[in-house]
């Protein structure tokens, strides 16, 4: 008897779900009225729900900007937490519209996994953290050390490459998650803990005694983290790419969430005028309206504002801009021209 109820529910759900015809991602999202954004299940500063269940973070801000650009409302986002194991399948199978989950842009992911990385929102790199009393000041002095390392990640491979290239040996202490790695490191199970530098900074900041730990200066890998979309829908890829570029360009031109309305009417800079839709109609070229970028920037501010609010020096994580500064400030952020 109960089983039948169950099957009935199943059948009903399948039916009521309905079958959407194959259409472009933009049309699907607009018809749905919500953006399915794949984020990390929880990474300090990048994506985390607060006590009320509202998602916040550096990656989450990209979701909000895209939702604002496409749907006109930054709150129309469904945050779908993805694990490192299932994130790419979620994307390729269509469960999420795009992925912004501190995922490294690599050759094989771009080509083999049928995804397109559309840009970089954070330039990361792998580093080491050691206890100060170990007396080590460079990663080159870590010969023979035990290293806590998350298994199944690119960091594991980078570590092996680095030690091999420098003719050193190490003993790996495999850990499953970042929290476990921290715990092992604090308990003294390993001399050094290695993961992305942003993660190390956040981890160190959460220690009871951060002053007793140092992050070594060497960055041993390139980890460009960025949003990714499925192969085959270039229009949708362009929307994500240019939303990100709009956030970066806005910082470059001094457009902030505070002065954006004013600049939209009064700015004499033709690039700003085009960006904010005061002149020309750039949005129409990718199926959006004139003010798409204005809304995207208004959602949580320009790139610099987002950075400072989520992971910047004013937050407990306290990351410096480093590579993630504008090209004019010696960083790598370089948005192509809006014209």
């Amino acid at each position, binding site marked *: 008897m109960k089983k039948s109820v169950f099957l009935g529910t199943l059948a009903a759900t399948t039916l009521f779900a309905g079958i959407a015809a194959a259409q472009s991602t933009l049309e699907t999202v607009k018809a749905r009225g919500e953006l399915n954004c794949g984020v990390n299940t929880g990474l300090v500063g990048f994506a985390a729900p607060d006590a009320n269940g509202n998602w916040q973070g550096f990656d989450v801000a990209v979701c909000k900007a895209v939702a604002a650009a496409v749907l006109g409302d930054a709150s129309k986002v469904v945050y779908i937490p993805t694990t490192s194991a299932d994130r790419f399948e979620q994307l390729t199978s269509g*469960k999420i519209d795009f992925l912004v989950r501190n995922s490294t842009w690599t050759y094989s992911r771009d080509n083999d996994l049928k995804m397109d990385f559309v840009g970089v929102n954070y330039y990361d790199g792998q580093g080491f953290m050691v206890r100060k009393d170990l007396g080590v000041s460079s990663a080159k002095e870590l010969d023979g050390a035990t290293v806590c390392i998350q298994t199944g990640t690119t960091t594991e491979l980078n570590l092996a490459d680095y030690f091999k290239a420098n003719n050193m040996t190490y003993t790996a202490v495999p850990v499953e998650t970042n929290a476990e790695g921290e715990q092992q490191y604090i308990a003294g199970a390993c001399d050094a803990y290695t993961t992305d530098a942003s993660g190390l900074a956040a981890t160190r900041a959460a220690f009871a005694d951060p002053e007793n730990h140092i992050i070594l200066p060497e960055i041993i890998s390139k980890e460009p983290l960025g949003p990714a979309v499925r192969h085959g829908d270039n229009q949708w890829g362009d929307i994500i790419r240019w939303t990100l570029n709009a956030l970066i360009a806005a910082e470059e031109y001094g457009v902030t969430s505070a002065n954006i309305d004013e600049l939209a009417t009064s700015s004499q800079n033709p690039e700003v005028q085009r960006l904010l839709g005061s002149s020309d109609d750039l949005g129409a070229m990718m199926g959006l309206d004139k003010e798409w970028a204005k809304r995207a920037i208004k959602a949580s501010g320009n790139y610099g504002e987002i950075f400072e609010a989520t992971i910047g020096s004013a937050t407990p994580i306290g990351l410096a801009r480093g590579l993630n500064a504008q090209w004019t400030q010696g960083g790598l952020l370089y948005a192509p021209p809006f014209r």
Partner: protein
Amino acid sequence: MSNSSAFVRTEMLPPMAPPVSQAGAVKWLRENLFSGPLNTILTLLGVGAVALLFWEFAPWFWRSVWNANSLTECRQIIEERYGAGATGACWAVIKERWPQYLFGFYPSHLYWRPVLAFALMCVAVAPVLYPQLPKKMMWFTLIYPAIGFWLLWGGSIWVPVVALAGLPIGYLAARIILPIGGAILATIAAIVVPVVWWLFLALPVELALEAMIPASIEQVRSREFGGFVLAFTIGFTAIAFSLPLGILLALGRQSDMFIVNKLSVGFIEFIRGVPLITLLFTASLLLNYFLPPGTDFDIILRVIIMVTLFAAAYIAEVIRGGLAALPKGQYEAAASLGLDYWKATRLIIMPQALKISIPGIVSTFIGLFKDTTLVVFVGLLDPLKGITDAVRASTDWKGVYWEPYIFVGTIFFFICFGMSRYSMYLERKLKTDHR
């Protein structure tokens, strides 16, 4: 004569207390803890280990902080109270995130719905667990899945009503066909008619009813489920459905009918041979490739199906053990009374087989309930790791490690311990032999 009487005690001596070494706590200690050199050493080692653990952890528990807004604040409070370098438990994280641990991202103004669903579930399972309650309560148990579904997910009330209507429709079809076409046709009708109803008629009927009499409550989507609401939803649904399914599979495996037998054996062996994680990944990822794009086949429903199938395979084997333990005479006695297969199974075989299987069934249920935490691997927010990771990812609580695990583990312990105690109660109650 009168002078030469032997000594005769006229009053009883008061009983003496037994020697100290043969009574009370001392005797118990001597017999149980210090009965020989080896046992004495083991006892001392055991006491030492317990004392060491207590020494290590008691201060940590003692220095608990319940009111703070972040881990840093917790640490400050502990340092102020107990001096620099002191460590203590920061339960403030549980206090702040308590609703998230219970409800996940369920909308906070709707918290009463899962709570009500849980309360009604207790009412619904009561007549199953305690037979002394009135039998009429079983009717509520039968319609509870629809009520629970409606309360948890919301939406139109007609969805569960129409889905539930398939059952009386199947029953009616069987009753109508029975005099005309015989038992086999009636059975087929009882299965086919409801399926046709669910697949083709339910949707238009539901929409028509909704158009005529709109009765909807706010809809909650599966992605908003999390924490213990999720664990309970998956765990209890799977428990409720895996038992009947497991019984059918166990009977199927015993059956002489070739196809039924081979299908049951194949199903059981396949499911038992595959790790649950594989099934969950299949449910969450692989199915997407087969379903038409855009199909929104609910992820929790998929997980429930997989967990139910998984548990059913184990239950089937546990019950097969119970069936195998029954003497052949019981089957023969039932047959000699003129009972047909279903009557014999229902009245003679199953009550005995299930009674024998209780410990195994409950073990499977406990395992199933704990396995609900594995849904974290398909991106659902289970209380143990899903919610905990989300909590740790906030800048306020990064660095909290043991407290959430201890808290969630304790709740799981109480639930599983409760199930275990109930099964022992049931075993005692059903004990009819005089061993």
